[in-house]
């Protein structure tokens, strides 16, 4: 086997599963340690530089970090990373003095951002402090985009949005043109901006096409439009019996909002299986906790109505069948149709992009699905001056992806405005630092907590369901937050091996609580994986291989379930093992991303 090249930043980055999984590559263990230390402001600022909306994301993130968390592989559940982010946001002091401000001297470049959602706001945050003059357009009267219009207030209070959008618009050099819908890209391009960023999201909700839909239209709403209407206070009630169609997070927001606006019998109906629903498991749990049943394998067949008034819906019962190639088909289950009486139907069966305002001759190519052709690394369209990001680039995803897109697009715009090749992407900034302070002293807490995942306390259901503006999650208090933070394994504190110091005494092999380390003769990787102290069966986790030992054997460490407890380094008599903190930050727009 080839010795591992730890000089490649990806190697140790992958060991920090949460950070690797995060689209914005937030240094998760770093901020969790700061929370443990009670340094909430510092934890918040680490987050802010990386993901721009810690308070918002600490309540709403789709948390790709948590399924990746190593704790979930060595114990039952991952660290509650997302809700710890909220702890930092909730208990920080005033941090405004630590935020960047626009320089008095502008750099002479003007950038238009269309749509004031998370992607555009991230671009503004990255570019305004560099001297760019940023113009931010949005059709609504306030910034925030889908963060403000589609996430119900009982999950995300308005004050949090105002605060974090304000941190960006207060940087300076950002002109907001809110309440003005852009109807023509060409008219924007005509204003001689140096670059235009499109962050208009996926604003069109998919509609239902079954008999009776048109006749009962007054009582059937498109999920995201209805949520926006609720958000702005135009809608404040719904019928007693509500059916929500769809299995995504929007459907979960619709059903829980309905329950707070007068819906007594709220039912979620999905076409396919409960397990296949797109909604995050915790959002499904939250809905069911509020007494909302989720019925599956029911395909909408007909809308029932009398004199223009909706009375119910008929569904065909289906079952899943798999063909030879493993593809799933929903076929008639041979059971009678199901009729559910209702007063309202909310349709949350998907979102689409929509660019009616981009003219055919604006110099942009669109693919056969009507999506703009966008480079996945640079976010540049076929018109070099126009960049895309967030849901408008590659279809509906979530906030943290929009932030990640925004950072990369800002790098592209910065390089583009300086006449550089935007295809050359900057390497991340990496610092490795030994944590050794004394014989048994490390500058991180290496004692492993045995606690199971803590639940976030909730507002009593009776109170929470009465008012759509009452935040239902109370968040961890500092004590619970500390206990949960202690569950983090500090996966960024890496085990680094120096073969020339090793005397092959086996002390590390003997002490390792999870049998990670093996000294073994060379072989093919698949075969070596089988003969380690514990077979390395997770092929997505790499083996750390080092040669140069006196006996000619290899040191092979399976990174999969390493607890990063540092006992290998504590038991090593020669210092061949060292615990080194790996801190990776993606390179943002600015001098560091440019070659000149």
């Amino acid at each position, binding site marked *: 086997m080839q010795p591992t090249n730890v000089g490649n930043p990806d190697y140790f980055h992958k060991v920090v599963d949460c950070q690797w999984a995060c689209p914005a590559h937030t240094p998760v263990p770093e901020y969790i340690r700061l929370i443990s230390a009670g340094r909430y402001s510092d934890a918040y600022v680490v987050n802010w530089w990386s993901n721009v909306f810690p308070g918002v994301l600490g309540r709403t993130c789709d948390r790709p970090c948590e399924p990746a968390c190593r704790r979930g592989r*060595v114990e039952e559940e991952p660290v509650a990373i997302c809700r710890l982010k909220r702890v930092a946001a909730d208990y920080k002091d005033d941090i405004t003095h630590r935020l960047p401000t626009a320089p008095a001297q502008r750099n002479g470049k003007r950038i238009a951002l269309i749509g004031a959602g998370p992607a555009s706001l991230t671009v503004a945050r990255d570019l305004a402090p560099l001297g760019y003059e940023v113009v931010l357009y949005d059709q609504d009267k306030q910034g925030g985009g889908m963060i403000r219009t589609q996430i119900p207030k009982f999950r995300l209070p308005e004050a949090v949005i105002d605060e974090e959008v304000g941190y960006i618009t207060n940087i300076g050099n950002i002109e907001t043109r809110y309440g003005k819908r852009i109807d023509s890209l060409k008219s924007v391009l005509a204003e001689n901006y140096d670059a235009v960023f499109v962050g208009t999201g996926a604003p069109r909700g998919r509609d239902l096409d079954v008999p009776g839909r048109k006749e009962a239209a007054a009582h059937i709403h498109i999920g995201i439009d209805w949520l926006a209407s609720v958000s702005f206070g135009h809608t404040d009630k719904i019928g007693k019996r509500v059916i929500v169609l769809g299995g995504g997070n929007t459907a979960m927001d619709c059903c829980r909002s309905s329950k707070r606006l007068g819906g007594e019998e709220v039912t979620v109906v999905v076409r396919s299986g409960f397990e296949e629903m797109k909604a995050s498991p915790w959002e499904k749990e939250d809905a069911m906790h509020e007494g909302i049943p989720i019925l599956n394998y029911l395909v909408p067949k007909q809308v029932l109505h009398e004199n223009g008034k909706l009375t119910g819906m008929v569904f065909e019962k289906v079952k899943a069948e798999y063909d030879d190639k493993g593809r799933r088909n929903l076929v008639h289950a041979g059971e009678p149709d199901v009729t559910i009486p209702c007063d309202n139907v909310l349709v949350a069966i998907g979102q689409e992009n929509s660019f009616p305002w981009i003219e055919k001759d604006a110099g942009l190519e669109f693919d056969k699905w009507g999506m703009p052709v966008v480079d996945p690394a640079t976010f540049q369209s076929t018109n070099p001056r126009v960049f895309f990001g967030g849901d408008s680039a590659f279809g509906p995803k979530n906030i943290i992806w929009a932030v990640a897109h925004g950072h990369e697009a800002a790098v592209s715009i910065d390089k583009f405005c300086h006449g550089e090749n935007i295809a050359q992407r900057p390497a991340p900034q990496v610092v490795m630092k030994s944590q050794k302070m004394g014989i048994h002293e490390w500058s991180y807490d290496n004692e*492993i907590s*045995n606690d199971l995942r803590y639940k976030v306390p909730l507002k009593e259901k009776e109170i929470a369901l009465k008012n759509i503006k009452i935040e239902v999650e109370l968040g961890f208090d500092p004590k619970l937050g500390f206990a949960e933070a202690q569950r983090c394994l500090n996966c960024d504190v890496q085990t680094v091996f120096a073969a020339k110091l090793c005397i092959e005494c086996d*002390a590390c092999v*003997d002490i390792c609580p*999870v049998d990670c380390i093996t000294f073994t003769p060379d072989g093919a990787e698949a075969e070596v994986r089988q003969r380690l102290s514990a077979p390395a069966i997770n092929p997505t986790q790499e083996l750390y291989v080092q040669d140069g030992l006196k006996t000619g054997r290899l040191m092979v460490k399976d990174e999969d379930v390493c607890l990063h407890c540092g*006992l290998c380094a504590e038991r090593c008599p020669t210092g061949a093992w060292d615990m080194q903190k790996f801190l990776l930050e993606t390179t943002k727009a600015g001098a560091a991303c440019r070659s000149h």
Partner: protein
Amino acid sequence: MTYLAKPKLHHPKLVANALGYTRRDYEGSVSTLCAGCGHDSISAAIVQAIYDLALPPHRIAKLSGIGCSSKTPDYFLGASHGFNSVHGRMPSVLTGANLANRELIYIGVSGDGDSASIGIGQFAHVMRRNVNMLYMVENNGVYGLTKGQFSATADKGSKSKKGATNSDEAIDMVSLAIQMGASFVARSFSGDKEQLVPLVKAAISHPGAAFIDCISPCVAFNNHVGSTKSFDYVRAHNDAVNKLDFITGRTEITANYAPGTVTEVQQHDGSWIRLRKTAEDYDPRDRRNVMSYLEESRAAGEISTGLLYLAAGDEADDLHARMNTLDRPLNQLDTADLVPGSKVLDKLNASLR
């Protein structure tokens, strides 16, 4: 030495043995020995062997004397019985315990100071009585607890960490054990668990005195150039006479060995030892042959390891067999057994008239 206990979290695929215990269940408290100490590897080998044999921890007694090695019973088999005795006196305590309760499995742990200096008399007698036990000497050639003076097993001519040369002859514990009458004698190396673990398993299953002289480098005081008990020196001079597989049931030999290279030996308890010869003409059952081989090997500066001697016939009978004691442990005999009454006494007296 480490201040933190080993975390409770373990590998998610950790396998349980026939008793339902994982290897982690056989561990003891956290070691306070120097980082990298060979003794900790021996503890880990014992844990692995007992786990593999699926022995119930409460059926095992660990006894030791004084010294770095004698501290180690605290670091393995945390749920077993333990007795930390006086310096060099572990053999007599173990003999007494074994006489009183022959049903326990006895593990005596000692060092080169404890067994070759202050306790050499007791060592000799426990071997000649062939007490059923595993006697493990964790042999590092120095007095580690008093900062590295030569012990009685340090080779003549070897150098201390400070540069002094040892002018005295070394006591070879293996030769001594064979001469005294131990019925299972082996030598191994803490840095070679592939050899050590099967030896520990075979020794524990052996019904008699099973002695393992395990070279265990002292990383603090005896792991330098000029030492003959360092990791590098032992690796460079290791002469393994055989490779041993310990098997509880007799399974078919599936691997292809050259004819005459594999010997199978059944022990009294029914377990089998399969020896794969690596040294030509080495027969561990021929005592005279063994003694001359060991002497030649020592003269050549080699360290013979493996299962060096295995007694046959009467020589393998342990203390209980020789004394013709009851199968029942003596500590389970009650007053009725011990005071059988005047009728039995009369009958006994009559038989002597």
